[in-house]
């Protein structure tokens, strides 16, 4: 007799899912430098385990595919085998019954395509490409290659001044990064294998909260070299470059178009995220190294020409940022009620805080600038603030935590709406943003996220009085036209930051990458300084010796990650005071004690195993 059983496997299934979660964590913590073929064999092996055994292409084919790939990995294959493998994968893709089979084959083909140089290296040289070598994830992923395990260990020993100086060996903005860094260092943190990533930015914030960085004596600079370098633009990239050039003994003159230094850190990021007085601590400290002259309100193109600079100095670093807010040319966009988010943030940063009382505000865009703009609008007492995004929330480029905070503060997020027109009343006053609803579509191979297209729905109006566009920034390229501008409207440099065919001229930061992160700009500034030193015919050693504490044995028990909290949304939305709370001493000691010291354990101890 047929009897139907209640599902008894629930408990067991939970265990399996929990075990898969740890599997996922291991994937998260995949260190930089693993051979992509080896990784893919692990993927194929998992795929094989999922086969039900019914269809031949999947049940038998995946095993053969894995074997062939293994022989390539082992350096034991030739082009014939490679061709056979590709053929097999294509056949499985076309013949397998379900996704377990055909998707595995499809992913194999993607891997073969994306990493073809690696496959060819294995076939020709019987080993991995020289770039395949495990690195310390946090240090490698940090664009400035800051010695992160080192400063975490110093924090754990309560040596905050040493921690600050160790950070400054690679990044002279410890405070700014403590507040706003997008923390690429945390992305592949090995601690994730055990519980979760170390809260690295939180620890850095704890360190700079214990001792203001301008109270930590800066290392001594080299004797004067007599060489003079101009830095155009006093943002994070320019000041970083100036700082390291000065450490090496060069004299630097920083030309800043605005009335204060800091660039986007000052004029782009609102005070509630990065308080200006804390930014000043970084800037005061880095200027204290000496040898840096600052010329404020001095703008190339307005106050002098780039030729004058080139003639006067031994080298030039252009780091003018990307500060010009872009505007979409939708109908009626040239209206006083429509402006760029950048202009709005710039005004607020200058202390011109508008009063939006009773006004309904719409912000267009899904990045961090849109979040900054919308949260600023909230603080300007807008009656409502709506962020209009063309794509889905998960595809927005803003940090999830920023989106979360904005929503907490009352910002409404409207996703999958493409702005199409600004609606005006008879007086020419903005009354609404007309949008075209979108539908999510196929994946974009390049970005790995779904594209959107116009949905078969009628236009949708969002009533409003003010519209801010936060859809990207471009550079003020005109005075620098001779350096050449890419199709994306950025400067083009080689990977040493040098501008081609203009010896002695270097560029970096947002003006090369387009709007990016502070730490990217800082990392490039350091690289530029080293290359400018080489260009001038030197090879200056500038590092000071900071003793890094001996590594303790790993703390292996599982502990939750200490998260930073924010002040209550009700309180914080009414002013520009900093929103984020720091770690307590107890929290900082717990979190710093969890660092696995990958600089000492594992590859870090091997020659070339750090970054």
């Amino acid at each position, binding site marked *: 007799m047929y009897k139907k059983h209640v599902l008894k496997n629930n408990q067991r299934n939970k265990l399996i899912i929990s075990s898969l979660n740890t599997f996922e964590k291991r994937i998260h913590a995949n260190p930089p430098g693993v*051979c992509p073929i080896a990784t893919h064999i692990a993927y194929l092996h998992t795929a094989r385990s999922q086969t039900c055994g019914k269809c031949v292409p999947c049940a038998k084919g995946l095993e053969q595919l894995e074997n062939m790939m293994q022989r390539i990995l*082992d350096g034991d294959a030739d082009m014939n085998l490679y061709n056979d493998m590709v053929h097999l994968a294509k056949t499985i893709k076309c013949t397998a019954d379900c996704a377990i089979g055909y998707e595995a084959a499809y992913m194999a083909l993607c891997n073969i395509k994306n990493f073809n140089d690696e496959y060819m290296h294995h076939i020709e040289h*019987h080993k991995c490409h020289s770039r395949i070598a495990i690195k310390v994830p946090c240090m490698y992923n940090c664009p400035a290659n800051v010695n992160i395990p080192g400063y975490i260990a110093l924090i754990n020993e309560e040596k905050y001044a040493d921690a600050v100086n160790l950070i400054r060996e690679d990044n002279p903005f410890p405070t700014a990064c403590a507040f706003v860094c997008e923390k690429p260092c945390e992305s592949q943190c090995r601690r994730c294998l055990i519980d979760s990533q170390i809260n690295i930015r939180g620890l850095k914030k704890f360190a700079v909260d214990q001792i203001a960085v301008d109270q930590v004596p800066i290392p001594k600079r080299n004797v004067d070299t007599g060489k003079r370098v101009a830095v155009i633009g006093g943002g994070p990239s320019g000041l970083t470059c100036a700082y390291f050039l000065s450490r090496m003994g060069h004299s630097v003159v920083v030309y800043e178009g605005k009335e204060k230094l800091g660039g986007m850190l000052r004029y782009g990021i609102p005070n509630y995220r990065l308080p200006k007085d804390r930014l000043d601590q970084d800037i005061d400290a880095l200027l204290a190294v000496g040898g840096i002259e600052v010329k404020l309100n001095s703008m190339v193109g307005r106050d002098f020409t780039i030729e004058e600079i080139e003639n006067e100095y031994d080298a030039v670093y252009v780091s003018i940022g990307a500060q010009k807010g872009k505007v979409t040319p939708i109908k009626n966009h040239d209206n006083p009620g429509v402006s760029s988010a950048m202009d709005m943030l710039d005004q607020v940063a200058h202390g011109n805080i508008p009063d939006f009382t009773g006004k309904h505000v719409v912000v267009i865009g899904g990045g961090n600038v849109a979040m900054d703009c919308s949260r600023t609008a909230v603080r300007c007492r807008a009656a409502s603030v709506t962020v209009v995004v063309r794509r889905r929330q998960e595809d927005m480029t803003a940090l999830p935590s920023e989106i979360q905070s904005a929503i907490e503060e009352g910002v409404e997020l409207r996703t999958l709406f493409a702005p199409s027109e600004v609606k005006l009343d008879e007086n020419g006053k903005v009354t609404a943003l007309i949008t075209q609803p979108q539908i999510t579509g196929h994946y974009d191979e390049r970005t790995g996220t779904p594209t959107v297209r116009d949905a078969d729905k009628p236009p949708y109006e969002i009533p409003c009085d003010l519209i801010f566009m936060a859809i990207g920034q471009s550079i003020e390229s005109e005075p620098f036209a001779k350096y050449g501008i890419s199709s994306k409207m950025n400067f083009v440099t080689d990977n040493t930051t040098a501008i081609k065919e203009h010896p002695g001229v270097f560029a970096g930061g947002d003006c090369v990458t387009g709007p990016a992160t502070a730490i990217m700009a800082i990392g490039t500034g350091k690289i530029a300084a080293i290359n400018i030193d080489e260009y001038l015919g030197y090879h200056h050693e500038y590092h000071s010796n900071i003793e890094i504490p001996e590594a303790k044995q790993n703390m292996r028990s599982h502990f939750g990650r200490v998260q930073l909290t924010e002040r209550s949304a009700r309180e914080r939305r009414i002013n520009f005071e900093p929103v984020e709370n720091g770690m307590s001493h107890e929290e900082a000691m717990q979190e710093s004690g969890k660092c696995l010291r990958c600089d000492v354990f594992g590859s870090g101890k091997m020659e070339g195993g750090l970054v």
Partner: protein
Amino acid sequence: MDKTITVTVDGKTVKASPDETILEVARRSDIYIPTLCYLKDVNDIGACRMCVVEVEGHEHLYTSCNTKVKDGMVIFTHSEKVKLSREFVLQLILANHDVRCLSCSKSGDCELQNLSKEFDLPIENPYRHKLVKLESVTANPFLSYYPELCIGCQRCVSTCNKVVGNGVLRSSKVGTRTFIDAPFGDDWKNTKCELCGNCAKVCPTGALVAKNMSKYRLSKVEKVLTTCPHCATGCQMYLMVKNNKVVDVRPADGPSNKGLLCVKGRFGSFNFIHSPERLKYPLIRNKETGKFEQATWDEALDLIATKFKAIKAQYGADALAGFACSRSPNEDCYMLQKMVRCAFGTNNVDNCARVCHSASVAGLAMTLGSGAMTNPIADITGSDVDVIMLVGSNPEEAHPVVGMQIRQAVSRGAHLIVVDPRDIGLSREADIHLKLKPGTNVAFANGMMHIFIEEGLVDEEFIKNRTEGFEELKEIVKDYTPEYVSKICHIDPDHLREAARMYATAGKAPIIYCLGVTEHSTGTEGVMSMSNMAMMVGKLGRPGCGVNPLRGQNNVQGACDMGAMPGDMPGYQKITNEEVMKKFEKSWGVKLSRKQGLHATDVFQAAIDKKVRGLFIFGEDPVVTDANQHHIVKALESLDFLVIDDLFFTESCQYADVVLPGTSYAEKEGTFSNTERRVQRVRKAVTLEGEMRLDTDIFTDLMNRMGYHQPYLTSAQIMDEIASLTPIFGGISHKRLDDGETLQWPCPTRDSKGTPILHVGKFSRGLGLFYPAKYQPSAELPDDEYPLILMTGRVLYHYNTRAMTGKTPGLMEKEGHSFIEVNTADAARLGIENGERIRVSSRRGTITSEARVSDKVSPGETWMPFHFPDGNANVLTNAALDKFARIPEYKVCAIRIEKLEQ
């Protein structure tokens, strides 16, 4: 922090410092912990896990090699858990290790094999499984890598990166397996590998080995500790002797080399000993046929004695001269000068320091009172040195083991200032490279001192208390503004200012210099300019500072120390000092000449002028090594009688009347004095077939035949005689050295431990002298006819005439032919391609050579090594002599280069 803590190791209570590792504490307490990947101070990565120990209260086993002890730690080094863990590790390592030990050159000397025996592992390995076989890498003539034997310990990689500082070895991946990327494949000649073989020394298994090692079993060879016969670093090494033949060399841990060797020491220091080209019996030239004929020792020595006595009788004792050999031991040099002084009766004795560092000997003696390196190598490359100023020295090639230690210092954070006309390897690492025009060192130094004075960087206290002549020098350097100097030296005045500031303000900053300073017609003034700079900022007589000439030949320091110089008796006792001369006369029982002898470089002109008629050359080949070859040949041809005592039939032998077969460093006892004044032993390793004799015995026989009674003495007895007559050697004996002492002269008494740093508290001459040197241009400057400057120098793979290194085929394969470095712009102007054979001419001769086109040299300048007979640079060089030291200007002469078809 001097804090003593207490730990318990295997039940034993031990006092320890918190800076010690568990392994260090255990070893110190005679508790054995096995290790495999660990290499003290080099590799403590904790990879193999053989050294694990159990620490009470901890589940996890600790690697003792890199875990520091903590107070109260209770450690078990041999618990059951530890033992099982070590067995497990060994089994895993062996699972994929090729265990055909009989075919492995390390069998018997393999750390893995020893551990397997120690742990008594079963033959069956539970983890053995089939893996893809990896190809061996064996194209390199000296070194091989067998991945199947590699245990991934990283010792070789750490050694190449951290110790040698060359960084060509790295680990590489084959998917999930890790191996070493060893540059020993088919393209070995094009890699950065310097072939030093220090990696092979540290490999615990037979994975990375020197090919020589397959020729012998360690248990079947005798290891003879000796000193390297190439440069003056004085590396200690073992000759591996099998059946009376040297089959390999392995590094020993000496104070100057710290267990390292370079390619010449490791692979180029023994093939020549057994070369079939060795002279085996005396040769006398048949006057009629001009051919050399085999003779007996009696015939040869009688002939020499007769001829020399006749010359002496007819033309006086000063018509005779003798050159000592800077490659031979102190005892040999001493006996040669004794022969010249006692039997020939003249002070016409010299050695090849004349053509390398005579300017240092003369210059530093004048300004400081002692013509030698002031500080030891370890001191000037130590971890606390702030700035190293390297002037006219390319130690990575000419003194490679010193170069390795400089690289270590730089990687530890020392600043480096390179003053050199060429882009040398170290200039890439240098904070500042002053790529100055050759021959402008004095201007450079005066410019530095101008800045010291102008910017208030001088050490006034030091100048006041310890020196004289400052005001006079100050007056001279007043004119040497950075701008003026920059025009002379073709350098950036900013670079000069920064170098001056960096050097002057550094805490510890040595000047290290070499032949780029000395081999000029103003070489002695160049040297004195170095001491001027150091004195002006008080950087003499203290650790990590000083003025440090890197001497050239293995025993060129010793040859000078032994009095093989025309104005100096042993130990720099002047012939002008009557008391000294009386002492020697009393001891030697002979009347000595008071007349200043001829410098070697002046002997050649004197020969042409018929003032010198009989010459005894011991172990030199002036036709190849001395400037202006045609002039040297003419001089040798002008002699009435030329005797050469050598290992090989050299170019110069063609002009000899008698050629005597001497013995190499491997066939005799003795001592070498290295560049840091350290006297080290040379020991006999082999006795060869043939009639070669100890050189000291040859000199003794000749002395007796010429009427001076000299008994046969052993090398140790000769050293005792040296000590009795030479105050700076007073406390040195073979016995003390054999007992393990390491002594740097001055070592006046048996109780003295030697003097590592000279001039502490007081200069040897009393007050240090500022010598007022003005810049003088080189003797021969480029003009329309000869528009380029030629510099000469050495390459890593050869020593001077290649008499020794040239007998090692692999070295010749790596670098075996004459070449000339030409600047890209000059080459483009003349249509010369890289690798093209070109004609090179000076006023003195013409050769052909291969053009190497690059920006290593500045426009208008060229550079050549002088090792290669297929285009010998010394055909071109100019014998313009320095007024003090009579050193020729090897580093600057004017040449012309042309395409061959023109």
